[in-house]
């Protein structure tokens, strides 16, 4: 008989570590997806998920129950992901999208490293080719938007949180969440248009509108 999350939490507060393991296993997929959508890499997402759960074990008595456990652990995962992204930016790694020649310098062939690396993070094969390509574009576009925008989009659309929960996780006001969410959607649309082959006359106006809004 499966117990509810509140019952498991009650056991956790009584010091039942087995219950804590059970609770973390329930939220494992959610945390991993959150990290994966944020960092765009399975290995990094696995590492961040592990770190988030260990932090949850370490600070479980800091969870006072004012928010939901999912919100609490998502906040941990989101903070870790943002910190990871910042560190990755600081490393000044070579851009995967820059074109390089044979000697490692940018060349004129327009071949990027991303295109040379086999993508092992693609969805399952039973998807249709069109949808598979669409999801790949969406994933790529999501990884290209700014971190703050991506975080709002992930929390809103993937984690399906409401504005207050997003505000709680990101520690920003709800009004800022709405504004940031709208701008994030426009930014995602802009990236999607950039990745998609231009459709004559159809998306031109949309592309122009989103570029105007980005400014």
């Amino acid at each position: 008989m499966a117990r509810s999350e509140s019952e498991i939490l009650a056991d956790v507060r009584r010091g039942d570590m087995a219950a804590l393991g059970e609770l973390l296993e329930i939220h494992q997929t959610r945390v991993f997806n959150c990290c994966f959508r944020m960092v765009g890499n399975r290995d990094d997402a696995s590492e961040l998920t592990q770190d988030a759960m260990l932090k949850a074990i370490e600070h479980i008595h800091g969870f006072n129950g004012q928010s939901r456990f999912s919100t609490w652990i998502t906040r941990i995962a989101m903070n870790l992901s943002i910190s990871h992204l910042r560190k990755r930016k600081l490393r000044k790694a070579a851009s995967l999208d820059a074109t390089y020649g044979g000697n490692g310098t940018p060349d004129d062939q327009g071949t990027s490293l991303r295109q040379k690396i086999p993508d092992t993070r693609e969805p399952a094969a039973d998807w249709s080719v069109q949808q598979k390509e669409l999801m790949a574009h969406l994933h790529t576009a999501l990884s290209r938007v700014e971190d703050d925008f991506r975080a709002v989009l992930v929390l809103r659309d993937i984690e399906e949180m409401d504005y207050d929960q997003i505000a709680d996780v990101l520690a920003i006001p709800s009004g800022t969440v709405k504004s940031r969410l709208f701008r994030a959607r426009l930014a995602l649309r802009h990236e999607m248009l950039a990745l998609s082959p231009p459709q004559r006359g159809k998306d031109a106006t949309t592309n122009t509108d989103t570029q105007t809004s980005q400014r």
Partner: protein
Amino acid sequence: MIDRYDEEEVLGFIEGELTHEQKVEFEKKLVDDPRLRNLVAHLVLDRHRLRHLPDEQAPPVVMDAVNQAVERHMLLGSTPGEPPAAQAIRLRFTRWAAYGGIAAMIAVVATIVFQTLYNPGVMNLAIRTHKFTGAGPESQTTVGGAQTPPLALAEKKAAEGGASGALPPPLPTIPESIGQTAAGETLHAGPSRLDESRRRSEEIAGHPSAAAGAAKPAESALAMKTEADSANDQKQRNNEKPDAAPPESLAKAEQGEETRALKLLDPKNTPAAPAAAATNTPAAIEAPDAAPKTKTAAIAQDHEGNETRQSDLQLVIVSASPAAAADQVRDWAKQNQAEVLTDRSDADTAAVEKQTPEQHADKQLPEQRRMVLILSRGQVVQLADALTRKQTNQITLMAPTRPPAAAAPTDELRDKSTGDNASGAKSAGADLPPPASQPADALAGRTGGETRIDRYLDSDRVVLPILIRAAQDTANATTPQDESTPTAEPGKK
């Protein structure tokens, strides 16, 4: 272009948060504006795609590490969040324990300081209580019957003397011994204690039996002093200004409270003396309480750490022949290995004052002798007993008196104590004026804290001053004279 539209309205439409009316109104805008309609359609589509992104399954290694961490905490028997909480409680308890300890130490120190500053006798009382509680013959009457506690003795005396003649009961504490240092100096315990001492002096002075007997200058001065104090007290009670300057005769009384003891030197002043005279039995040996705790034995550590002990008793022998009594004392001392420190003769100053001009012209002064013996405490009673068996003496063993001022006798004893021979001491003392209570002064060691006779003695030996006085009249000669002693000369008073 998008800036022309309301962000909240567009977002609300995308998120499905608009009311029905708002939604209808916005759809009208969409119909009118195909660019907006195209943008919104793509935004809704992107949202839909994001929401339907497939969930990625976490690799199993993630939960492996998590399960290992959970098991580690379970095996260690500690809840992950427990250590900080337990540590906080422990820190809180430690902090409060430290605060409590500091507060207790401050309270103890403050109490000690307060007690020391406002009640300086406490320390001496503690020392005295530790070393002297109920011990030693000096605190109780030991001759002529069972030992009687001082308080009981005083109450007995009060009962014998009646309501008017009763001596005042002893103080419940040891007020006059409190505050005496090892050097014999009195630490004034404050006005209240001084007032208490004065009150006792008044009571003693007002005692009928104290007014009788051999009157001494100090005694008369005390009587005047106490009368003046009583008058001043009465005036103070009546909110009147007390007399500014006391009579000059009170100067002697101001020198100390020893004059109270002088009253008791006279056997007639003691309640037990008449009974002894009537029954021709050895006279009472006054316990120090009879002279109300003038100087109980004081033991304390002086500034050099030596234990000093002063005699708390003075043996008063009223004899028809002081010379014969002195011989008896000397013989006894020789037989009992007691040391005679001082033996000299002087005139009875009290009697001189009472002399008639004729007696003064004839220079018929009553003789009195002063001796100082060093003997053990037990021998004090033996000596008194031996002298009483002679049936020629009336023995009173009582507390010594404080001298008015006597540095020379102390010097004499100091010489003795530092190793000079006894003859030198005697010769030095022969030229001294006859103070009223020279030995007691010497014993009190009030001359500046140099080497004193007290230090010459070990703790088991005491210095016993002996005053041998001639009987003032034949009627007061309570015992028949011994054949070996010369007959008292009636003319020599």
